[in-house]
C-alpha cells in the first residue's frame, strides 16, 4: 500500500495543501472523497452533478487551505461542509429539489471492501443514532440536510410554524450530538443485516 502521508492528521494535511502539496490533497481525497461523493449524490441524486459538487469543493479546499483554522473546526467537518454547501446550492439552482429523501428503496447497494470498513462503521453508527431520534426531529434533519430544503420551505411543506421547525432542527442536532458522543452508542454499531 502506498500511502506516503498516511501517518499525518487531517489537519496537518490541510497545512501541506496550503503549501500546494498535491499529495496532501490526494490523501485528503482518499480519506473523505467517498463520503463527500455519497453526500453529494444523496442531495443531488445525479452522478454528474455530484461529481461537479465534489470537485468544486476539493478545489475550494485547495485554494483556501491557508485560511483554515484547525482550532475552530475539524478538517473533515470543513471538507464535508464545503461539499454540502455546493450540493445544496446546485439543488436549489437547478430547482430540482428531491424531497423523497425519506425513501430508501432506491438506494444502491455498497460493496464491502477492506478500505470501506471504517466508512461502513461510521454509516452504521450515524444511522443507528438517527433511528433513535423522535420521528419529527429526524424528518426535519433529513429534509433539510439531504433534501436541501430551507427552513421556510420545511415549514410550508410540513404545515408547521417556523418556530416549530427551528426547534425540531435544533433539538434533533443536539440529541444526535449526544447520541454520537456517548460511548454506549458503539454498541449500536452492530450491523442490522
Amino acid at each position, binding site marked *: 500500500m502506498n500511502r506516503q502521508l*498516511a*501517518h499525518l492528521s487531517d489537519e496537518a494535511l490541510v497545512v501541506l495543501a496550503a503549501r500546494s502539496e498535491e499529495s496532501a490533497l490526494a490523501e485528503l481525497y482518499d480519506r473523505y472523497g467517498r463520503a463527500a*461523493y455519497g453526500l453529494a449524490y444523496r442531495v443531488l441524486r445525479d452522478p454528474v452533478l455530484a461529481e461537479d459538487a465534489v470537485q468544486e469543493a476539493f478545489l475550494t479546499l485547495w485554494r483556501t487551505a491557508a485560511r483554515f483554522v484547525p482550532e475552530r473546526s475539524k478538517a473533515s467537518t470543513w471538507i464535508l461542509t464545503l461539499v454540502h454547501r455546493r450540493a445544496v446550492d446546485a439543488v436549489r439552482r437547478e430547482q430540482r429539489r428531491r424531497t423523497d429523501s425519506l425513501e430508501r428503496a432506491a*438506494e444502491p447497494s*455498497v460493496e464491502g471492501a477492506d478500505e470501506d470498513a471504517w466508512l461502513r462503521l461510521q454509516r452504521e453508527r450515524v444511522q443507528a443514532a438517527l433511528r433513535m431520534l423522535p420521528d419529527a426531529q429526524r424528518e426535519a434533519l433529513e429534509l*433539510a440536510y439531504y433534501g436541501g430544503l430551507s427552513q421556510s420551505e420545511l415549514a410550508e411543506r410540513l404545515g408547521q410554524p417556523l418556530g416549530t421547525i427551528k426547534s425540531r432542527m435544533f433539538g434533533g442536532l443536539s440529541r444526535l*450530538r449526544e447520541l454520537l458522543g456517548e460511548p454506549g452508542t458503539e454498541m449500536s454499531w452492530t450491523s442490522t443485516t
Partner: protein
Amino acid sequence: MDLHDLTAAYALDALDADEAEAYEQHLSQCEDCREQLAELNDTAASLAFATVAPAPPPRLRAAILEAAAAERSNVVPFLRRRWVVRGLAVASAAAACVVVGLAVALSRPSHQHFVSLGLTRGANGKATLTITGLDTAPQGKTYEAWVIPKGRAPRPSGLFPGGKPAVVHLHGVPENGAVIAVTVEQAGGVRAPTTAPIVTTRA
C-alpha cells in the same frame, strides 16, 4: 428574528441567502453562537457518513488532482522567481542556500515510503501485528490498532508510537475474517476510532 435561533439551520445549510448573511454578521459578534455552531457543524457533517451511495468514479480523483496541479502551475513559477530574485539580492551564498533548502523542504515531503502491515498468529490464536514505514505519531497522538469482526464494533487492540518497525501483540483473539485497522488517535487511546484508518488488513 432572533438570530441565536438560527444556529442549527445554518449548520444544516437550511437558511435562505439573506438569512445566512444576517446570521454570519451576528456570528462575528457572538462568541456563544460561534462555539455552538462549531459543535453543531461537526454533528451535521456526521450526517454525510450515513448516506448510501455508489463509490465515486476513479476519474473524479484524477480530475481533481489535475485541476489542482493546473492551478498551482499558475502560482508557483511566480513564487520561484521571487525566491531567485531574493537569492541574487542577498550577497551571501549561504543565505541563498537556505532559500533553496526551504523550497526543497516544502516541495518534497520526507515521508516517501510504504506502510506495511503484517499479521502472524501464535498457536493460542493470539495475533501479532508488525507495522513498518510509519513515522512517529504527531505530538499528543498515538497509533491505535483495531480488530473489527464482521458486522461488529471495532475493538481497541493496542497502542504504539510508530517511528520504527512496531510489533503489537493484539489484545484478545481476532476472529477469522476480521478487519485489522490502524488509526491515529489522541495519546492514551480511545474506545472507538475517530479517524479514518491509515492501513488495514484482514485476519
